[in-house]
């Protein structure tokens, strides 16, 4: 037993070293609390962009923002596919409440948060994704960070039973991350490569329109790092290939629209319109290779049925639909994309500026 205790202490020491380095480096800002996000929003309210945006808890950030920002003219909900839309494109004062990998639960949960805080603008833009009505698509972040507002959305707006709340805050996955060796490597690399001045939590501000490391603009729209945007086509095609299982496969083996998600989506849209806001449903295109793979797998009709549904539903409530999943319908070719799902900043401007600023 004595020997076992000795081994256990050695194990704890090794684990302690790893956790210490992870807390010290913390490249994904796991240790940051609400006060940090409040400070971040405060800086953005003064018109500054935040440089060196690494992985951070964007759902928590948006919940804090809903309390602190002024009511914008346009508010945008959706995933990273619409996060590049900024005030210049819209032509008015916007707030981009998009979050990475947003599911319908995320969009509805965040809508409820902004609605409760009286920040729903006169114009609301909702970005549509391939997985918007896919019941098999799951992202743990929505249930972890948005379970409470989502529960209230379900009962008060959608008229559906609320899912069991799992609460917000530090979660098991974060604790696991702080003890993981992959996070340890990122922390070491972070500590070696960057001086303290350049970390995101030091809130490096910028007024430049482009970024080397990824930037959150003062309107909360996202600027991709130059290294992600300006790459040759082979790299983009590799990225498309790597995303096949998440982009193409679910459509090719489509199981049908999830009725709960559909009701959530429709309730939210109806609520927006009935409260007097203009609603724009925005469908950003996907990469031609991904679209072709979907066509080849016999899934094109699924996308066409989606779009027909969005158009019909929008017409029924007096909303507008812009764009299409089909890249050719948007006059896009290979050079317009950074990966399977994201168009370049130049294409974002070309596609949406005229339509949204008018």
């Amino acid at each position, binding site marked *: *037993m004595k020997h*076992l205790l000795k081994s256990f202490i050695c194990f704890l020491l090794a684990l302690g070293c790893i956790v210490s380095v992870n807390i010290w480096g913390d490249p994904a800002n796991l240790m940051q609390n609400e006060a940090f996000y409040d400070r971040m929003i405060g800086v953005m309210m003064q018109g500054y962009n935040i440089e060196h945006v690494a992985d951070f808890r964007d759902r928590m950030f948006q919940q804090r923002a809903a309390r602190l920002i002024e009511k914008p003219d346009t508010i945008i909900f959706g995933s990273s596919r619409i996060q590049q839309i900024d005030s210049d494109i819209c032509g008015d004062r916007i707030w981009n409440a998009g979050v990475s990998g947003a599911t319908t639960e995320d969009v509805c949960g965040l809508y409820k948060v902004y609605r409760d805080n009286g920040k729903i603008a006169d114009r609301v833009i909702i970005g549509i994704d391939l997985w918007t009505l896919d019941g098999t698509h799951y992202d743990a972040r929505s249930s972890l960070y948005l379970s409470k507002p989502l529960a209230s959305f379900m009962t008060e707006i959608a008229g559906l039973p609320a899912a069991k709340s799992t609460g917000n805050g530090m979660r098991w996955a974060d604790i696991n991350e702080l003890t993981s*060796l992959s996070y340890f490597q990122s922390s070491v690399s972070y500590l070696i490569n960057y001086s303290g001045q350049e970390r995101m939590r030091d809130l490096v501000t910028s007024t430049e329109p482009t970024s080397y490391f990824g930037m959150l603009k003062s309107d909360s729209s996202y600027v991709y790092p130059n290294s992600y945007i300006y790459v040759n086509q082979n790299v983009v095609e590799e990225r498309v290939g790597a995303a096949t299982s998440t982009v193409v496969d679910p459509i090719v083996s489509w199981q049908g629209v999830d009725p709960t998600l559909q009701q959530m989506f429709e309730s939210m849209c109806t609520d927006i319109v009935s409260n007097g806001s203009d609603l724009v449903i925005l469908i950003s295109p996907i990469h031609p290779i991904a679209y072709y793979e979907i066509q080849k797998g016999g899934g094109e009709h699924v996308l066409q049925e989606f779009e027909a549904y969005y158009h019909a539903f929008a017409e029924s409530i007096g909303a507008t639909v812009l764009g299409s999943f089909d890249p050719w319908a948007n006059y896009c070719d290979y050079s317009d994309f950074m990966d399977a799902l994201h168009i370049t900043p130049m294409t974002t401007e070309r596609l949406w500026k005229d339509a949204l600023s008018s």
Partner: protein
Amino acid sequence: MELGSLQFDIFICFALFLYWAKAQQKWRRSVLMAADFCFLYLCGLPTLVWCLFFILLGYLSSLLIERSEDRRKTGILCGSFMLALFFIAGYLLPHYFSTKLLSAIGMSYYALSFTGYLFDQSKDKVPVASFLDFFLFGGNFATILSGPVQSSDYLLQYKELPDFDENSFHEGVLYILWGFFQKTTVANGLGLSVDHHFTNYTVSSPARLLLASVFYSFQLYCDFAGYSYIAIGMGKLFGISVPANFERPYLATNIQDFWRRWHIGLSRWFREHVYFPLGGSRKGIYRTAVNTIIVFLVSGLWHGFGLNFIAWGLMHGLALALFGLMRPMLNKYGLLEKAEKNPILKWIARILNFAFVNLAWIVFRSGSLSVSLQYIKMLRGPYEFPSYLLTTMNLPEKKIISVFACLLLVFIVDLLSEHDRSPKKVILASPLLRNITFIILIALIAFFGNFELSGFLYYNF
């Protein structure tokens, strides 16, 4: 629950403390059973239910065999029924269902260990076991994830669990660290390149494809051997013996030698339960050759229903059969003996053997036979080896050197062990050297491990 995760670490620590807290056999067996139970539950309720169902089924089959008049026949029937059930669950049920049930466990190890026991029991090789022994044998968390396939005599150890042995404990830690080292630094490091090239083989050059195929051979070895070492090490922490599964297979000088060293548990299972019942080598050299081919065809099919797996099995079966037929002639001229004694000839034999095994792995790894044929067709050349070749192999950025340095370390350790100079003995003999080795291995894993790829390659089979 993934090996090496925080959840797993906590689980192991608790289980170890409880297990060694009391010396009574009853206590240890109960703790081990509870640990297995908890582990299966943490893998998911469907996995627990599925495993319990099979353990119960195996135990009832064992009782049925014991009471049967024609034990052999009943044994074959029960064993075949269990194998068929595993096949149905693994391959014929809807994908979602089988994934839910079996994703957490290494299906084949579990199935083969059980059926092997039933076959052996019907031949009176092992006595009938109690339900607890059967549960500890079948549900052992050390082996349920990644094997190796255990022969029935390993069940007997659960009847009398050994006392705490400091050396065995240290050996266990060393095995675990060495397994993680192989898995994370080499197998995962090479995996990114392998996946990339086997997916995009049509747009790659012959030199890159050749390298990728060699990478796959080492990836598969380090991944599977790594997991086997972890299982052996985990067993040792609890004083339980887990059979060795690999004996430096790429240092084999011929194909027969290779199969004595690769996936030993599975090879032994096929030898005892397929090859011997077919007549083995007792019915003349031609019948032996046919039996060998049949065994490898079955082995290929066991790995998957694709034509590529059948082709892979056939390649190895034919090579072994041919070797068996040529062996008398090779012995007559003393070629095998010369190859063993002359270092240059030995290395030539090793390289030739590796080249064949590597070729067969291409067929194994490709998604289909047509893909593997196209891949092999592209290997015809022309070859260009530019100086920047390695840097464009899609290996983990900033870790290219470390991947190869770690592979070299694995190779050196294998080579030393092959010549009876196993570093393990030296390391474990000195407490200082042992602790330094532990620290170095932990540091190597922490700094040079690749954690983007996780999961065990052989889960699929």
